[in-house]
């Protein structure tokens, strides 16, 4: 039923978008997202999708047009990176608060300044409180799988939230891999139809979008947004299971690798999870009980599952591909550590900031992390809480 073909991350994102066939796509070019939208433009030009494309003059307008289109009942998509996401900032919060399930590939790239075009997660991590669901992808296959699942997740009546499908700039976006792709019919059937029950185009039932909402109601509306996020994990799991039944590739909030009996655990999101897997393989050969816990959904944050998955670990390293200036460590670290706070028996947790601005992170560095973890587990002490991996100090 599936066909395996070679794609780069950008190309497979475009391929998934071709199958999704959104009603409206509004986008603006930025490296390393460009190939996705270029490829999609070819599909439009060749009539392989029925999408109406808006070649906007900025990302701010891209997200604004998506908000308008989605409020008019359309399936609306865009894609961006780094500064483009930063320029959308104001409107991504609005998209989430209007409960518009817009889907957006975010090809992770370091935020300026100084300007840099390579991968880190400062862009999407900065948007972590915007009210979007965030799915992180390890490789090209996951870019495809996450995009196909993003629509039924975001559009679920209990959720109605926009979804970012994040994947690492260049490492994934420009790396070619074999990807198993569903037949169009099967993919489209899985995605299903979307009906916005409050469409601006329903002339006979006029609706007001975006009123002034003051101290007497705003809080309740924010509370409803929190509730939608709270309902999202079940939907993510449900859709991940259905997708697995179709493809054999099952998805949840997290993925574990040799975690069952692992004393030393690395937590990572994105392509580095793949490097960690390779490291785990090597260490296991040496008899080290190493494991990986991969974050797929950072929003909603899978607190319960993380507690449960780490219940046997002795020492945990949380890898963050972004810095949170002035905070105690990286954003994933902070949340993992806080999730464990109430637990009687908990592992030592150490923060590693790595790969900023596209700095390469290889097996040797990750081995060093496991080495640190072993020392901490043995001594029962963390000697350095926040570490910067591969930086010249």
């Amino acid at each position, binding site marked *: 039923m599936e066909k395996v073909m070679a794609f780069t991350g950008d190309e497979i994102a475009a391929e998934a978008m071709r199958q999704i066939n959104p*009603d*409206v796509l*509004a986008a603006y070019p930025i490296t390393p997202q460009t190939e996705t939208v270029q490829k999609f433009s070819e599909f439009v030009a060749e009539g392989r999708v*029925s*999408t*109406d494309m*808006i*070649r*906007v*003059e*900025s990302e*701010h*307008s*891209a997200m*604004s*047009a*998506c*908000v*308008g*289109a*989605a*409020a*008019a*009942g*359309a399936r*609306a998509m865009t894609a961006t990176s780094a500064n483009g996401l930063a320029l959308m900032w*104001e*409107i991504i919060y*609005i998209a989430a608060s*209007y409960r518009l399930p817009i889907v957006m590939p975010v090809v992770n790239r370091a935020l300026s300044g100084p300007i840099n075009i390579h991968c880190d997660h400062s862009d999407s991590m900065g948007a972590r409180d915007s009210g979007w669901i965030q799915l992180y992808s390890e490789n090209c296959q996951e870019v495809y799988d996450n995009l196909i699942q993003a629509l039924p997740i975001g559009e679920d009546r209990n959720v109605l939230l926009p979804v970012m499908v994040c994947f690492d700039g260049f490492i994934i976006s420009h790396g070619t891999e074999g990807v198993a792709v569903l037949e169009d019919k099967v993919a489209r059937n899985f995605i299903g139809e979307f009906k916005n029950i409050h469409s*601006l*185009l*329903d*002339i006979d039932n*006029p*609706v*007001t*979008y*975006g*009123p*002034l*909402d*003051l101290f007497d*109601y705003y809080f309740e509306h924010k509370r409803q947004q929190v509730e939608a996020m709270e309902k999202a994990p079940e939907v993510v799991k449900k859709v991940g299971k259905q997708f697995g039944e179709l493809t054999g590739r099952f998805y949840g909030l997290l993925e574990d690798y040799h975690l069952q009996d692992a004393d030393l655990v690395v937590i990572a999101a994105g392509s580095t999870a793949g490097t960690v897997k390779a490291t785990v393989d090597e260490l296991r050969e040496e008899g080290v009980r190493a494991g990986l816990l991969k974050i797929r959904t950072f929003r909603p944050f899978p607190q319960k599952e993380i507690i449960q998955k780490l219940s046997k670990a002795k020492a945990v390293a949380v890898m963050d591909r972004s810095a949170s200036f002035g905070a105690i460590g990286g954003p994933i670290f902070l949340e993992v550590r806080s999730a464990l706070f109430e637990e009687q028996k908990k592992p030592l947790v150490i923060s590693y900031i790595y790969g900023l601005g596209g700095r390469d992170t290889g097996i040797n560095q990750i081995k060093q992390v496991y080495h640190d973890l072993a020392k901490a587990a043995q001594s029962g002490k963390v000697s350095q809480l926040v570490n910067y991996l591969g930086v010249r100090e």
Partner: protein
Amino acid sequence: MPSLKELSTREERLSRGHRLCPGCGASVIVRQVLLATEYPIVAASCTGCLEVATSIYPFTAWKIPWIHSAFENVAATLSGVETAYRHFKKLGKISKNVKFVAFGGDGGTYDIGIQALSGVLERGHELLYICYDNQAYMNTGIQRSSASPMGAHTTTSPPGQAIPLGKVEQRKDLTRIVVAHGVPYAAQASPGFYNDLMKKVEKALNTEGPTFINILSPCPRGWRYKPELSMEIAKLATLTGAWPLYEVENGKYRITYKPGKKRKPAQDWLKSQGRFRHLFREENKELLKKVEKAIEDKEKELFARAGEEI
């Protein structure tokens, strides 16, 4: 153009009970615009006086579908709505003929929203953009915008010893910038001349492509005059040359109202509002002349462009 009697039987699409100030030009403009047509309308607004005062949750004054998302993006937001509409039309999922109207303040249009507006004009969306121009950021407390006229006292251009003029710069000529995009129809109108205004709206909505009307929106709060005088003020602007009425079809300018014998000196316009009061101090005589001349020159320039004599 239907008769007043017929207009009075048309349904109002902006309800009473909104919270704009008494005498505010904005609601008069919206009502005149929406009464000018019987097409179903989907409207959108920028953040600003009109938006906050017509949509305080859980109430809305809009009896038609309406969206506000932010300050600088009404053009882009509505372009998304309009694209969705064209898409569903193409797929046969919608049969009605719907029109799209954006209402942006001068701040949301001349300044922070000019990029989104320019994008929409260049891309050719089927929508009418109305700028209700009250010549300052009123919602945030009368700060100057690039639409504020030279000599205006605003809270960020107060006249003082070092800068006695108030706002030093000339207004930005936005309508001309819009025309430079090659749009099929652009116009300037005033609620004091409702016939002219509504004709322009009808024309715009029946023109293919993006259209634009810049409408003077008297603001008793910001301009400092009595609320009951708003329509008088709106007329005076045109009679004194401060707000000429014209339209531009495919690049060709036409003056749609010539004051003729009713013409009044620019000074009458300046005298009518507290925001220009400082110009009438003895020591500011030269500044007053400068501001008057700026108004006169601008009007002359426009008439020349239309090939008309004042």
